[in-house]
């Protein structure tokens, strides 16, 4: 336990209540993003001083209720019960009736509570009047009005937090906790003073030994325990009757307005059955077009920058070849391979923050739910799935727009099936060498389109099976709130982007670099002594001699039914750090050396490639099979590292790798089989 003056302050509230905006105002760039042990829920916190107290502010995920139905809620309850000295309950004044439901549950945790009342400007602009003193009396705790965008009320909130830490108020409770109070009095009489909140936790803890010395209090203890247990499950109707009454008394409503609100007028278009879908398509097109065109120059700069770094370091390390190769091909290539994802991640999360902040994301989910819902996903899955066509890494990260943990996991597991841009060089090589010259541009275009469609088509049955198998079990009903439209605040947008970038670099990024170096070592060691061969032949001889080449040869029999020889299987293995490196690897394996010139000739070279017995290596089924294999396999270290981070488990990336590899194998085998059937 930290010093007495160190206090933990949890920020809790409904989604869309303005909690994140408030939290950002209070903590800014001091935020730290981590994970709670064993779950996918992120822990966002920041240290700051409040008066004389050293505090840790904890941003608890948005919640509608404390009844632990999902992982998020279970974590929130744990945080509130076990590591909180004070709760700041963020309540949307324009939606008091529903927001107070959560408040009524939080009050019963018997921790000191301060209410931060957001969106007060919205209440006033709707022509209603907020009676703050009345509300304070009804809730029985400090209520601080906030005007989020102007950071008004922050000072007052901090003062209220400080005051409550020193002398907490006693909020109004809906549940009968008289038995707890009686127990508190009895214990105090025996010289043991406990705060009611600590006592509540103690009676609910089966391992508690507090009562052991006082056998005569056992019945009172049991009664208190029962009361505490029942409180959480107080009938929702009772709570809503109370919240409706508070709403009536605390907000003096003006005459009901006849004119439609701004939100309703915007929704007339944006969720319209025809225009709504058209706007959705246009918005999505603009977003992904912008991500693609805006990230390209930055990715080029990053690749160029790391290439330049390698080229100036390389000659300096020439005297020690191992170090030279380790630094240039292992380390710099690995770090560069991580940083290159940053532009896409930042730009995608900029747009997600904009879509979420304005309220459009919820509308889009409303429009798309039917399309994605029938197979077990939901309307929100369109963002992660669409972005995965550019790259699965930001796509998997984007799945956090989905609050339902099972739907989110299902989305993460199929996102890498969408054909990302790193598969494109493989398709282009094969199509350009085998399909276009023989069958013409039409079939070349068709093949490219089919490859992109393949992942999507395969994803549907996969989700279907996942939902009936691995992800089976109780599911939350689909609930989607459509919040009023509003302008997002730049500070929130940029802090969101910054946090995602930091999380990617520090957690997934380190795994990727380490693994890249391991893969580098596998293709570098053991060294073949200099044989005096030409450069390109020496590179091939070395790769063949290395661990990678040996493994590639060892697995040749496994890949033989797909028509792949050891060179293709080695290229697939060595593409694990990044898919697109399969092309330069093939360059080495077909003894062209590396470099742009070699890649240009690669198409010609692989056409002539033969098995040792003289049969053609790249037959049409083998070529198509190789594309299908690449379309379906999980040969992407970065994706697996991001899945590991986002699911906070080793099990799911392993599962993903296994199922996708099996699918890829079966897909390529199926193509061979079709080829044989058609030939006979």
């Amino acid at each position, binding site marked *: 336990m930290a010093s007495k003056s160190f206090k933990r302050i949890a920020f809790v509230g409904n989604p869309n209540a303005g909690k994140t905006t408030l939290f950002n105002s209070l903590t800014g760039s001091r935020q730290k993003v981590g994970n709670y042990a064993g779950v996918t829920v992120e822990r966002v916190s920041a240290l700051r001083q409040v008066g004389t107290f050293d505090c840790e502010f904890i941003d608890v995920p948005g919640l509608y209720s404390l009844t632990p139905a999902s992982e998020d809620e279970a974590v929130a309850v744990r945080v509130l019960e076990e590591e909180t000295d004070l709760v700041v309950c963020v309540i949307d004044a324009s939606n008091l009736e529903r927001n107070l439901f959560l408040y009524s549950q939080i009050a019963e945790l018997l921790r000191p509570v301060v209410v931060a009342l957001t969106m007060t400007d919205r209440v006033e602009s709707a022509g209603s009047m907020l009676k703050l003193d009345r509300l304070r009396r009804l809730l029985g705790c400090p209520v601080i009005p906030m005007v989020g965008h102007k950071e008004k009320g922050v000072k007052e909130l901090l003062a209220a937090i400080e005051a409550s830490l020193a002398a907490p108020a006693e909020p109004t409770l809906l549940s009968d906790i008289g038995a707890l109070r009686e127990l508190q009095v009895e214990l105090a009489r025996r010289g043991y003073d406990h705060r009611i909140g600590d006592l509540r936790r103690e009676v609910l803890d089966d391992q508690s030994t507090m009562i052991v010395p006082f056998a005569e209090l056992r019945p009172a203890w049991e009664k208190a325990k029962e009361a505490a247990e029942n409180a959480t499950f107080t009938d929702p109707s009772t709570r*809503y009757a109370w919240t*409706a009454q508070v709403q009536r008394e605390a907000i003096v409503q003006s005459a009901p307005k006849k004119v439609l609100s701004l939100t309703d007028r915007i929704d007339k278009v944006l969720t319209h059955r025809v225009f709504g879908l058209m706007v959705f398509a246009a918005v999505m097109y603009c977003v992904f077009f912008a991500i693609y065109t805006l990230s390209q120059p930055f990715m080029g700069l990053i690749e160029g920058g790391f290439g330049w770094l390698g080229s100036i370091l390389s000659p300096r390390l020439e005297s020690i070849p191992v170090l030279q190769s380790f630094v240039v091909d292992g380390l710099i290539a690995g770090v560069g391979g991580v940083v290159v994802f940053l532009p896409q991640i930042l730009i995608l999360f900029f747009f997600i923050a904009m879509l979420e902040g304005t309220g459009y994301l919820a509308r889009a989910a409303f*429009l798309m739910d*039917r399309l994605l819902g029938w197979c077990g996903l939901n309307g929100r899955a369109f963002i992660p799935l669409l972005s995965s066509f550019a790259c699965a890494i930001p796509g998997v990260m984007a799945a956090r727009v989905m609050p339902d943990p099972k739907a989110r996991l299902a989305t993460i597991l199929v996102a890498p099936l969408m054909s990302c841009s790193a598969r494109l060089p493989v398709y282009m090589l094969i199509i350009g060498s085998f399909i276009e010259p023989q069958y013409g541009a039409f079939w070349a275009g068709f093949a490219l389109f089919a490859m992109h469609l393949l992942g999507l088509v395969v994803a549907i049955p996969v989700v279907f099976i996942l939902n009936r198998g691995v992800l089976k079990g109780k599911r*939350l009903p689909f609930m*989607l*709130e459509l*919040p009023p439209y509003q302008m997002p605040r730049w500070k929130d947008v940029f802090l969101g982007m910054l946090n995602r970038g930091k999380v990617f670099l520090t957690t997934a990024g380190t795994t990727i670099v380490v693994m890249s170096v391991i893969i580098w070592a596998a293709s570098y060691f053991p060294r073949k002594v200099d044989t005096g061969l030409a450069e390109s032949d020496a590179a091939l001889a070395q790769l063949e001699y290395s661990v990678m080449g040996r493994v590639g040869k060892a697995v040749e029999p496994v890949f033989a039914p797909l028509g792949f020889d050891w060179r293709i299987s080695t290229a697939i293995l060595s593409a694990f750090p990044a898919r697109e490196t399969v092309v330069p690897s093939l360059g080495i394996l077909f003894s062209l050396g590396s470099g742009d010139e070699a890649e240009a000739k690669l198409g010609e070279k692989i056409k002539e490639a033969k098995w040792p017995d003289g049969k053609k290596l790249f037959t049409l089924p083998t070529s198509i099979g190789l594309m299908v294999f690449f379309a379906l396999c999980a040969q992407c270290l970065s994706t697996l590292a991001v899945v590991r981070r986002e699911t906070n488990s080793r099990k799911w990336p392993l599962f993903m790798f296994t199922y996708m590899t099996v699918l890829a194998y079966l897909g390529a085998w199926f193509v061979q089989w079709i080829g044989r059937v058609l030939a006979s």
Partner: protein
Amino acid sequence: MMTFAELKKGMSARIVEIPSVGDDHRRLMEMGLVKDTEFRVIKVAPLGDPIEIDLRGYRLCLRKQEMTGFGVEVL
């Protein structure tokens, strides 16, 4: 008495029956869908589901199929 699936855009209704207690419906009740709650159907999504309702001063979208246990009465 009707079900959610039978409601049309613009209708106002009251919840008169709630499915016998189960955890699935508890969550819906916690969102304010308790007995005697009045609401209005704002919109039906272009593909027929979900539906958007206005209740307790906010907007909520629900899937018809997940609301089968609820009975409503048109006002």
